[in-house]
């Protein structure tokens, strides 16, 4: 009984979500409290579990038993290795902080709070399912469930068209990746003969490389969708339409990292030999392209949340690249540090947005450093971690990735270094514009420090953003079995990253000064417009793909519907039946003599057959 404690990680949020939704939809405070309590309780359980309160292997439940021999039956089980449990720690920890932050952030919101917190709880449940799943089928269930809860939470303010559209966009874009993921799962079942992680090990050796490549790339498709890699990255910036805590939890720290987690999980269980060279290059290239493109696009965004969203994309690209370079350890390290500091950045941005009366444009802020120093300080901690100033957590993990890249494939190392410079540039730009100088709008001018429910999580996360990279903490918390933080060492990676850091800061300082400017000096030329317009990728999708499908696909379907189905099948048969009926009704003309005539003809034919043809047979 007691060994089934990890199941509680799943069941607690699920039950709470159901209760919130079904019982407390009319009393949001109870729902919010219940949901927050469950998140904290899960976090506490997780901490307890990691601190030696390990209860043994949880039971495995057979979900779909197989009647025939030789078929794999689907089971539901949990993995409780370090990778999963420490990942759970990150998820539940950030989850709990976000729940607390949400209490403050959503206070004045008129929308249905029960729905919001139920959505958060569902998300916690589904994310835990992904993390703890012991087979790909269960992962897929969680995969779809996080997509669903993400849809619910992005579209929380569904009365706004943009939010509803963004929710739809996220959901539909994810479908594309999930389709590949599903194929990948089936391929895995066919190739490895199992989808349980524990049974996959060592089976990759005897399998044709092409088959392995196909399997891994199909599974990678799922990560491309969920972790918003190029070319399916378009949904993540739009997902910022959701409430900011949701962005912090789902679209920065945990859900989008699920793709990376899943890839690392596969790498660990299948063994690195399953990741063929082609697959690795594909994965690393996709990650690198995403990192570069997203960093470029982030340079010209004005919305504080969008800058962070693109930076998330860029960092996810880093992680995926690391996975492709077979540096799962480095990827998970970066995932772990990134989760803390990116959650911090988003929650800080959320606090700033709330305090500026829901103003998100950085050009309408300014001078916030004086008005809300604590919040800004926390935000700066996150920024420093993100741009990898030595001593902050991001520095260690980024260094680990660059190390791995330099060892495996120097091209990716230089790409990583370039992205680091870009990251430094846009984050410095953001901080300079938003925090320095004078307030440029009355919303920013009236800003004051955020309330305690928002500040507490910020402070907690700020501490984590600083210290989580050091070996004495990371060794215990980084979700990777047998993780050991590499000590800080001088060398080419260090010099290059210092160079790019300096380059980025100096460039940003030169361009943006100390917050004196009121408009972006880089804006106006065609390059910046292109970056602002997200390199027209969304436009191409909208016009080319969606428009094309809707225009021409609709025409084809319209043709098929009108001409074939309505014209030929429905109306055609009706017409034929009617005409046939007319013909028959012409015969049924009610004229007795006509009938008699036909009867006479019949008699003649009958006599003819009887008397003249049969004997000659």
């Amino acid at each position, binding site marked *: 009984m007691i060994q089934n404690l990890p199941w509680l990680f799943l069941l607690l949020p699920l039950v709470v979500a159901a209760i919130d939704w079904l019982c407390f939809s009319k009393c949001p405070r109870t729902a919010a409290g219940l949901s927050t309590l469950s998140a904290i309780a899960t976090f506490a359980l997780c901490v307890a579990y990691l601190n030696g309160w390990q209860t043994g292997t949880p039971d495995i439940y057979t979900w779909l038993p197989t009647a025939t021999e030789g078929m794999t039956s689907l089971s539901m089980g949990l993995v409780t290795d370090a990778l999963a449990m420490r990942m759970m720690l990150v998820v539940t920890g950030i989850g709990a902080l976000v729940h607390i932050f949400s209490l403050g952030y959503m206070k004045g919101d008129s929308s249905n709070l029960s729905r919001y917190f139920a959505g958060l709880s569902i998300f916690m449940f589904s994310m835990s399912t992904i993390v703890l799943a012991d087979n790909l089928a269960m992962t897929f269930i969680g995969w779809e469930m996080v997509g669903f809860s993400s849809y619910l939470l992005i579209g929380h303010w569904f009365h706004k068209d943009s939010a509803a559209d963004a929710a739809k966009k996220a959901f539909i874009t994810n479908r594309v990746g999930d389709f590949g993921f599903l194929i990948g799962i089936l391929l895995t079942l066919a190739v490895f003969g199992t989808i349980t992680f524990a049974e996959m090990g060592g089976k990759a050796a005897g399998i044709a490389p092409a088959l392995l490549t196909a399997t891994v790339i199909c599974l990678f498709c799922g990560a491309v969708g969920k972790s918003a890699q190029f070319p399916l990255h378009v949904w993540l910036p739009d997902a910022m339409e959701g409430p900011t805590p949701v962005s912090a939890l789902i679209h920065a720290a945990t859900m989008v990292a699920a793709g990376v987690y899943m890839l690392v999980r596969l790498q660990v269980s299948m063994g690195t030999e399953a990741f063929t060279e082609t697959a690795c290059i594909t994965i690393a290239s996709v990650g690198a392209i995403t990192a570069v493109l997203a960093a470029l696009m982030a340079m010209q965004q004005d919305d504080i949340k969008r800058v962070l969203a693109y930076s998330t994309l860029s960092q996810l690209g880093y992680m995926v690249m690391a996975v492709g370079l077979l540096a799962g350890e480095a990827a998970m390290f970066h995932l772990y540090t990134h989760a803390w500091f990116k959650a911090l950045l988003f929650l800080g941005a959320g606090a700033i947005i709330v305090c500026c009366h829901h103003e998100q444009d950085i050009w309408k802020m300014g001078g916030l450093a004086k008005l809300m120093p604590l919040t800004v300080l926390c935000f700066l901690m996150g920024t420093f971690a993100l741009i990898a100033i030595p001593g902050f957590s991001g520095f260690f993990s980024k260094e680990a990735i660059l190390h791995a890249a330099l060892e495996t494939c120097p091209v990716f190392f230089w790409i990583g270094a370039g992205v680091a410079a870009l990251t430094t540039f846009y984050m410095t730009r953001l901080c300079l514009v938003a925090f320095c100088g004078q307030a440029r709008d009355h919303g920013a001018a009236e800003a004051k420090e955020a309330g305690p429910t928002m500040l507490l999580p910020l402070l907690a996360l700020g501490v984590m953003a600083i210290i989580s990279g050091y070996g004495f903490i990371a060794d215990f918390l980084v979700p990777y079995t047998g993780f050991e933080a590499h000590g800080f060492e001088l060398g080419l990676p260090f010099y290059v990253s210092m160079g790019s850091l300096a380059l980025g800061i100096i460039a940003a300082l030169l361009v943006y000064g100390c917050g004196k400017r009121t408009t972006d000096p880089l804006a106006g030329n065609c390059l910046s417009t292109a970056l602002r317009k997200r390199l027209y990728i969304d436009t191409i999708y909208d016009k080319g793909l969606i428009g094309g499908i809707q225009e021409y696909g609709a025409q084809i379907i319209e043709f098929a519907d009108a001409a074939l189905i309505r014209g030929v099948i429905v109306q055609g048969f009706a017409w034929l039946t009617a005409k046939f009926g007319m013909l028959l009704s012409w015969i049924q003309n009610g004229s007795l*003599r006509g009938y008699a*005539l036909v009867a006479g003809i019949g*008699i*003649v034919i009958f*006599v003819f057959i009887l*008397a*003249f043809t*049969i004997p000659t047979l």
Partner: protein
Amino acid sequence: MESAISSILFYVFAAAAVLCAFGVVAFRNPVSSAMNMALCFGFTAAVYFGMGAQFLGIVQLIVYAGAILVLFLFIIMMLDIKAEEHARKSFPLACIAVIIAGIFAGFVTKVAISLPGATVGECPAIVLCESIGELAPGTIAQKAETEGFAPYGSAMPELSPAAAAKALGADEATAAAATAFPDTKLLGQSLFTKYNIPFVILSFALLAGTVGAVALGRKLRKD
């Protein structure tokens, strides 16, 4: 001589019957049609008499020409039916009808003249019977030879009052002395012995017909 006269009489009566039948179809006035039909039935009855089927001839006269025809006339009078309007547009229909009738008559003629012995060739009906095993091949011809009845093509066999009397149970002398053919007796014997049960069932059919006619002829109630 006698047979020649009866033969001639048959042709005369047959021709008259056919003429009257034409009249039935041709006259537009239903009363004329009915009268023509009475004549036609009368001539048919004469043909029956010529074949020695006196009882059927009488029945034909009484039932058809008498009862049925009178019924027809009665209805025509009662309903006061006028002559048919001349319908021009039914001319094509009439043509087709005549053609069909002609073809049918042709078929019958063809079958009749190809009866065994009538002309060259064999009766298709007999060939059919032989082919499906109802009759052994050549049975009819053999029967005609051994049992002494004429092939179909030749003249009909003479009626034999003596054989009939014998069949009715008379002794040799009486049978030999018989001169009139006891048609009605023989028919009655067949009807009330071999076909007794069908005859009874037929009476039920007649009863049902009567009831039906009464039911149909009733005035419909207004409710």
